């Protein structure tokens, strides 16, 4: 690691002013991506601002059909929550036990790794991302590869999810890293069907063609008729874009079969 100044503010305001005053600062939440990156010397921030000591940013609360997850809530806590079983299931499959004990939802979605799990839920469960500055609709939040609607210095304080009538998350893990090669969250809320896909593209997205087909006929068979355009999908040594496209279909079917 290169040298940096470590800070551990106790309020959000303090965190933001540290960031504003830093030459090249970076927030640290769980550190599951940032710390390995620093160890590899692939980043050299001047200041690391740890959000871990700021009170009020953790916990899962349920209020009137909305589940609110604090930005610094560990994956393991969400995995143990009961309000949205599919969300708990998703959280229980992030990384490994140690990642779940340290990693946070805010850190995950602020990073916007194309293969992270949470983004599938953010786009599929009508989420609202609350930050120190504003609220952002889940569908507008992810903007590209490791890119989000967040501005410099903005901190994710909580994420609200709508409780669906039914939902399921299906994941095809990278055999080595356990990231999602493809992850699909299917949610049904009245007549509305949401299909959130992670791993396949530059960032999480809603598969609208699948959603339309499933809105007309909510059955696994309905997926078969949908052509999945994989031309812009990711490709690596574990899965070609074509295979990812195939998996989006397979996982969607399986998710539908679970909840149909």
């Amino acid at each position, binding site marked *: 690691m290169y040298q940096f100044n470590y800070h551990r503010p106790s309020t959000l305001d303090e965190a933001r002013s540290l960031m504003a005053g830093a030459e090249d600062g970076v927030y*640290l939440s769980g*550190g599951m991506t940032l710390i390995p990156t620093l160890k590899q010397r692939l980043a050299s921030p001047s200041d690391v601002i740890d959000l871990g000591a700021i009170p009020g940013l953790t916990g899962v609360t349920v209020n009137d059909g909305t589940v609110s997850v604090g930005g610094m809530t560990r994956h393991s806590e969400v995995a143990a929550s009961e309000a949205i079983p599919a969300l708990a299931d998703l959280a229980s499959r992030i990384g490994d036990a*140690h990642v779940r004990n340290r990693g946070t939802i805010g850190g995950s979605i602020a990073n916007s790794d194309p293969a992270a799990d949470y983004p599938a839920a953010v786009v599929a469960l009508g989420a609202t991302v609350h930050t120190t500055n504003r609220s952002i609709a889940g569908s507008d939040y992810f903007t590209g590869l490791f890119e989000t609607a967040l501005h410099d210095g903005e901190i994710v304080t909580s994420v609200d999810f709508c409780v669906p009538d039914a939902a399921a998350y299906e994941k095809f893990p990278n055999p080595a890293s356990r990231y999602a090669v493809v992850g699909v969250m299917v949610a049904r809320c009245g007549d509305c069907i949401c299909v959130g896909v992670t791993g396949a593209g530059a960032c999480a997205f809603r598969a609208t063609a699948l959603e339309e087909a499933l809105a007309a006929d909510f059955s696994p068979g309905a997926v078969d008729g949908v052509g999945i355009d994989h031309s812009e999908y990711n490709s690596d040594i574990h899965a070609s874009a074509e295979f990812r496209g195939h998996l989006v279909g397979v996982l969607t079917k399986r998710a539908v079969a679970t909840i149909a």
Partner: protein
Amino acid sequence: MEITLTVNGAAKTVDVADNALLVDVLRESLGLTGTHVGCDTSQCGACVVHMNGDAVKSCTVLAGQANGADVTTIEGIGNPDDLHPMQEAFRDNHALQCGFCTPGMIMSAIDLVQKGGGALDEAAVRDGLEGNLCRCTGYHNIVKAVLAAQSST
């Protein structure tokens, strides 16, 4: 900077660099070399310790993040005359060969069993150990040991 933490029940105050890792504090500042380093991408699990009751990879925790924490390492769970049931199960089931992954594996296994409520089956144990690599045992005897320790505790 100075940090204070409780390690294996004893309060410790150590002066560390801002960019120090918890594993550096344990191995270098405190001489607790039972916690090992086997990779640099937070995958192998040789460095697992308990922090505030959870199994974590100490190579992926900054020393500052551990300020004020209660940390338990392999050295803190038992000794040759009074082994932790998980240590005993590892020995009884030949769940280790070269021993390098063993401390991290045992610390993960203890956390797994503690949180498993006595209900772990083989699949759950295999799942629960996905964050710890072992190159010697093929995991067969590790899984046996964890299941045995679950029934003995």
